[in-house]
Each structure stands twice: as C-alpha cells, then as structure tokens.
C-alpha cells in the first residue's frame, strides 16, 4: 500500500494572530510553525500501517521553502520521503489540484489528510482532492482499518459515531481518535539524524487555478468587561442571563 500524508504547515496553536501589509498578509514574525494537529494524528496512523502492514509513507505539502522544516519533522517521525510542491497555497481548490497531480503521478492508494487546517479552517482540500481523483472519501475519521482493498472506517457525526465500509483508493480527513494523543510521536535524535538523509523532492507546480481570493483580514472586536457575580449571590447570575443576556 502506498500512502500519501498531506501536511499543512500552520502556526502553532498558541500563536498570536496578526496581519501586515494593510491587513492582507498573515504576520509570520515570531510565529512558530508546526504540522497541522489533525495531520499529525493521520501521520501517526500512517506509521502504524508502515510498521504493521509494510506500507510506504510519503508526505506532501504545497508551499514555499519555509515549509521544509515542517516536512523534515514528518520525516523524523518516520515518513520515507517528502514532496514539496513549490507554490504558495492560495486556496483550497488550487491546493487540491496540485495534490491531485502528485497522487496520480505517484500512484498512491491511500491519502491521509486532516479534517481541517487550523489556519484556513476550510475543510475543503481533502474532499476536493477526492472528487478530483475520483477516490472514495471519509472525513471526520476517527478509526481506520485496511485489509487488502477493503476499508472499515469510523466517522464522528453530530452526537455519535458512524461505521462505514469502503475501498481503496481513498482519501480521509483525519482527526484525534485516529490515534490517541498519547500515541503521537516526538522525533528522537535518531529520527532527526535519519531525516536529514531522506529525500526532499521539490516539484514545480502545475500552476493550478484558484477559485477564491483572500481580500483582507480583520480581527474581532476587543471583548468588553466581564461582569463578576458573587458566589453567594447566584440569583443575580440567573437574573443577568435571563434579563440582560436573554439566553435562558
């Protein structure tokens, strides 16, 4: 089985979000970038298929040279080789199209992406990719078992879970549950050393078109003052929620 894990290079979850160039660009100053958390769960599950079922695991990102340390981290966790499509990620469709080309050229059977990226939050790329390459698609995936071409997966749905059966080729949108938090791997010294020797293939983009364009960013209004209620005076809280906030 040939697995491709799609990695989105995102600001660390604690990052302060600011913008430059008249609020049109994300300010990367002082921001630490990481593997998108949903992708990290997927990558770890891919390592399981590699170790238990002899799958090969490549990672891919569509992004500039600044994304290479993130791909190196994925190599240090255990991926075999990395692919970087040398283009800025402009919108979900453009990224999906570039990825579709990588999948077709590489003959991958299983593509593991994340449910959504924590920066763009589009939740668009995996589904669009699946539709473009005519593969099956399961998102919000919290469990994945593969036997030959047969796939059993579990999906988180509103208020519960759904078990589905499907087959390869398949794209999944993974999330926590695919593996547990405690199964996530921190690259060790040996992994980091080995990652330096693993291939980092830089591909020129096919210049896929975009369908949407970011015009500018805005930050939410600063929050007003909190109203504190005395612990001995909870009637006041009930009253405020009823008469002022009108939510009960």
């Amino acid at each position, binding site marked *: 089985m040939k697995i491709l894990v799609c990695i989105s290079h995102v*600001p660390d*979850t604690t990052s302060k*979000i600011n*913008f430059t160039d008249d609020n049109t660009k994300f300010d990367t100053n002082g921001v630490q970038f990481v593997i998108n958390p949903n992708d990290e769960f997927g990558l770890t599950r891919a390592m399981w298929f590699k170790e238990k079922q002899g799958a090969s695991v490549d990672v891919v990102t569509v992004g500039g040279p600044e994304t290479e340390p993130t791909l190196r981290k994925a190599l240090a966790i255990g991926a075999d080789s990395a692919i970087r499509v040398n283009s800025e990620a402009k*919108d979900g*469709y453009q990224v*999906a199209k570039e990825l579709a080309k990588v999948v077709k050229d590489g003959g991958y059977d299983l593509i593991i992406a994340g449910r959504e990226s*924590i*920066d763009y*939050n*589009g*939740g*668009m*790329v995996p*589904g*669009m990719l699946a*539709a*473009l390459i005519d593969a*099956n*698609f*399961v998102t919000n995936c919290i469990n994945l078992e593969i036997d030959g071409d047969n796939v059993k997966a579990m999906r*988180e*749905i*509103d*208020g*519960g*879970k759904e*078990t*589905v*059966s*499907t*087959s390869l080729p398949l794209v999944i949108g993974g*999330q*926590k549950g695919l593996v*547990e*938090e405690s199964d996530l791997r921190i690259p060790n010294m040996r992994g980091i050393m080995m990652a330096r020797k693993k291939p980092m293939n830089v591909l020129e983009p096919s210049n896929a078109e975009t*369908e*949407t*364009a970011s*015009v*500018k*960013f*805005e*930050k*939410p209004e600063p*929050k*007003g003052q*909190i*109203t*504190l*209620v*005395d*612990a001995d005076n*909870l*009637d006041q*809280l009930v009253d405020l*929620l009823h008469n002022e*906030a009108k*939510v*009960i």
Partner: protein
Amino acid sequence: MSVLVYTESEQGKFKKVALEVASYAKAVADQMGTSVTAITINADDISELGNYGVDKVLKVNSSDLEKFNANSYANVIKQAAEKEDTKVVIVSSSADSKYLAPLLAVGLEAGYASNVVEAPSSASPFTVKRTAFTNKAFNMTTIDTDVKIVGVSKNAFGLKEHKADAAAEDFSPSVPESGVHVESIDVATDKVTIADAEIVVSAGRGLKGPENWGMIEELADVLGAATACSKPVSDLGWRPHGEHVGQTGKPVASNLYIAIGISGAIQHLAGINASKVKVVINNDPEAPFFKAADYGVIGDAFEIVPALIEKLKTFKAQNA
C-alpha cells in the same frame, strides 16, 4: 437563476440550521434580485420553509437516500442546481454539509467559502466574510467562479422571518451508487448534541475526576444543554472524545457557553469564541478565562454548581 439552499432534515423534521440557511439564502436572493429555491431530502412537512423566505421547494423523497451519504447527497444537490441554473448554493456548517460541500464544489466547478458569518458584502465581486485561524480572525474572501457555494456558520446569521410561498415541486434525481457504505450508526438519541445545542455546559480538569460529572450533567439537564469538556479531560478518558471542544476539537457556536473548572487556554478559547455569551466558574481569579467571558463567578465549582442548579430549578418553576 434562483439561489439554491440545501435545507437539512433529520427524521423528516428540519434541523434548526435549515431555517437559518434559508434566512441567509433569502438575503442573498434579495441582493441579487432573484428568488429562493430549497432542496429537501426526505423532509415531511415543508411548509415551515415558507416562513423564512423560500419561494419554491424541490422535494426529494427516496429510500436510496435514507441514510446520509456525502457522495449521493452532493450529486442530488448538483442535479438540483443544474436544473435551476443556480449561480449561488447555500449550505450550513453541519458535519454533513461540511462533508458534502467540497464534493459539490468540484461537481459544479464552483468556488466554495466555508464558515461564512455575514450576508455577502458585495454581490459583484461576490465577497463574503468568513472566520479563519480558528475564530482568531476574519477573512474577507471573494468567490470568483460563475457558480458559488457558501457554507454559513451556525448561529452567525440567525433566523429572519419572511413570508413566502414555499411551493412544493416533486423532484426525482438519479441517485448514483456511492463507494462509501454506512454500516451502522451509534448516536445517543436522548442527548442534545453540541452541534445543535443552544446552551453548552462544559467542564475541565478543575473537576478532578470523572466521578464528579454528575453535577455537570444535572446542570445541563436543567438547562436543556449539551455537555462538553476541555481536551485534557477527554485525553484522560474522563469523558468521550466527542465532547472535546476547542481548536482541535469540536467548534461551539451556542448562545450560551458555561465553562466550569476550565482555565481558558488559547486553544480552548479558539474553539468556543463563536459562542454568544460565555460564563466562567473558576476558583482562580487569575484564570485567563476571566478575560474572555461575559459573566464570571470566582469560587469552588463543587459549591457553586449545586447551588446554581437549585437556583435554576426555582427559576424554571417560576417561568414555566
């Protein structure tokens, strides 16, 4: 040319988000000088849509569509969009709609913007405001394709009443085979889900252990709320994963969010900031949540929560 809106139902009844997206579709249709067509799949009584500005309803009833399937549903909506020569399709941000929208987008060669919080600021270029960076910012985005898909954030636009005909028309699209088959569904039907809830009661590591969730469930029960938790609580196995909210968990966009024994870490707040009113109960006045909430009580959750339950019961009895 009408604006097409997918109005979701569950067991034949419209979900609340269906009425919200219908309201949104009406606003877009007004801007573009056209009408609203809804597509329903196995909904029983469609008349309610007439209260939210829907002029015409394409009613699909098919046993092949009994269980939600992203491929088949996307394909059916695509056929409706083509039949209506639609330029704008509106969907919600439910798990189902987020699943099918990217498939529909490729099918219709349409640009798609998800998590949209306001009516378009301009129809040409078609410009919408969406959340990005997990609610830490907004992004103004244009959709540049001929056909456009807008995914509306829950609770962002609200319900806007508007009388219209909601004239029903039976629609029998072909239902293609999907490569994904639902084997079984496991949902707690007696519980309010985080996605649907108007009120969410959430608790964190401050509760000390899973044995202390009785009072959280009771509080949720009194309020008709869903229960949720912080990430460490589900990582520790105190509560199921499905309750984990925040940047890497479920998003919460309820009217009221009550956080009990949760410190208010940036990753937690990112996922719940879209909630309208936030209440924090924490014994540490320095907890960051106090900077993010609208109302707060400083003190021991083990005393405050039971007392609050009693006050709310009295309130309910008086306002019943």
